[in-house]
């Protein structure tokens, strides 16, 4: 019986954790390549969720197409924030301005969504939430299977892209030494654009799969992003492998805290861990490679 409960909570934790990983990876990629933080990332999550919601309903329950729509909306938002905020401010050479500007973008997007979608929470029911499987005493929905499959595939593709393709290696080169990457014939601005587009697409996609779990309001992303920041710090800023590990860890902590302690204690446990990490291992979980960005 206890083994079943542990297995059940492990599944729940991994489902939640893989969504956190999608959102946190975007933050960590942008930090790794640009040494910048995109505060509007949270709103890209929310907009991805709304895009998935509306596309799914317009197409009569095609949730998977909703996920694709969220990915595209996220990518478009990333492209837009790069040409309006990151690229022009980078030319000015000030490091603080982009950070402040993304806070501005975030406030703007939240209020725009409030105006369009209203403050009343949307019930995001996918056709897969009701399909329940039972395996060896544990329950899971088709929705969780989709979440795990889509997240795992996305993360694996991203990893392979970074590790094995010319463009992925160029992206890591830009993260490690932007000027020298330019000397290789790599246009750093193109790769920075690519990084922001990928990161934002991940955010949108994460939103599409988080929304059925959370309460979908214009502020849905904001509640996730704080945890995503904690994950990025626990994993080591800019460290992709650390972020994946930390995301899953936080997901598991949440589900086991819910089971054995109290759901109200989740944030206390997660942020307690964050404080401990900052105090004793500020470079993150995988600290042998602490200087590697991306």
């Amino acid at each position, binding site marked *: 019986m206890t083994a079943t409960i542990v297995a059940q909570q492990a599944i729940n934790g991994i489902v939640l954790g893989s969504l956190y990983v999608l959102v946190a990876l975007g933050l960590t990629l942008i930090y790794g390549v640009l040494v910048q933080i995109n505060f509007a990332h949270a709103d890209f999550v929310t907009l991805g969720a709304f895009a998935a919601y509306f596309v799914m309903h317009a197409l009569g329950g095609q949730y998977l197409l909703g996920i694709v729509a969220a990915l595209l909306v996220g990518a478009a938002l990333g492209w837009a924030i790069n040409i309006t905020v990151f690229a022009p401010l980078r030319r000015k050479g000030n490091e603080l301005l982009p950070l402040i500007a993304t806070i501005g973008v975030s406030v703007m997007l939240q209020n725009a969504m409030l105006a369009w979608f209203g403050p009343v929470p949307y019930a995001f029911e996918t056709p897969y939430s009701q399909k329940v499987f039972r395996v060896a005493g544990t329950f899971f929905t088709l929705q969780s299977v989709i979440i795990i499959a889509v997240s795992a595939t996305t993360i694996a593709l991203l990893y392979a892209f970074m590790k094995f393709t*010319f*463009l992925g*290696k*160029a992206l*890591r*080169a830009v993260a*490690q*030494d932007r*000027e*020298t*990457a*330019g*000397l*290789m*014939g*790599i*246009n*750093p601005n193109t790769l920075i654009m690519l990084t922001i587009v990928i990161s934002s697409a991940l955010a949108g996609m994460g939103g599409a799969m988080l929304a059925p779990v959370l309460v979908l309001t214009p502020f849905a992303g904001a509640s996730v992003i704080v945890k995503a920041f904690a994950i990025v710090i626990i994993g080591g800023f800019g460290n992709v492998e650390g972020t994946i590990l930390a995301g899953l860890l936080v997901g598991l902590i949440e589900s086991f805290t819910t089971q054995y302690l109290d759901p109200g204690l989740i944030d206390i446990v997660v942020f307690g861990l964050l404080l401990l990490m900052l105090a004793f291992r500020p470079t993150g979980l995988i600290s042998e*490679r602490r*200087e*590697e960005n991306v």
Partner: protein
Amino acid sequence: MSVLLAADSLELAYGDAPVCRGISIEISEGEIVALIGANGAGKSTTLRAIAGMMTPRAGSIMFAGQDITRLPSHERTMLGIALVPEGRHVFPFLTARENLELGGFKNRRDNAKVRRMIDEIFDVFPRLRERSGQNAGTLSGGEQQMLVLGRAMMSEPKLLCLDEPSLGLAPLLVRDIFQTIKAINKGGTSVLLVEQNARYALETASRGYVLQTGSITASGLCAALAKDTRVREAYLGRAAAKAGAA
């Protein structure tokens, strides 16, 4: 010999602080040209301007008949200018092999060619073949210098700019590196060499320019520069200056 690169009256500055004035340098096809001078004379700055890492305040740079004064560094690399920066600047968390692959970014659509070129570089530097899977940051200084030379050659440059290739290397290795530079030049690549070790620089190059506090104060054939009393006194040491006077 036709002119490959012609920098004309460059004025270079970091922000508002002027560093170089009236820098005019010419490099012909197939030539090795040395740029010598004391620390802070503006040698690296001149090289950065030629490679496109900074834009001159005034003056112009022509390369292979094209005005490149305002081109960013990545476009100059595509045209055939490669720079090995001072302090080597390997990508520390990419393997030695990946560093070389990125040097061949120009040929990224032709994997077979990139592989073949890497093999050629491994033939020149067998040590790099042994280290190919290791992160570049873990290589020794000499190995890193070989790696950045190989990485620069991967872009098939017409002009190879080298900033202090001997810095921090053991004397025996320095000799090797200069041998390699000569071999690269024999293969048809022009070389612009910035070097504090003026003796090696003047031995390797055919012509030279002497930079002093941001201006060119002497230029000519290296054989002549090596005999110039002022050059000897300033850059080849007092003993050499006395021997020359005697």
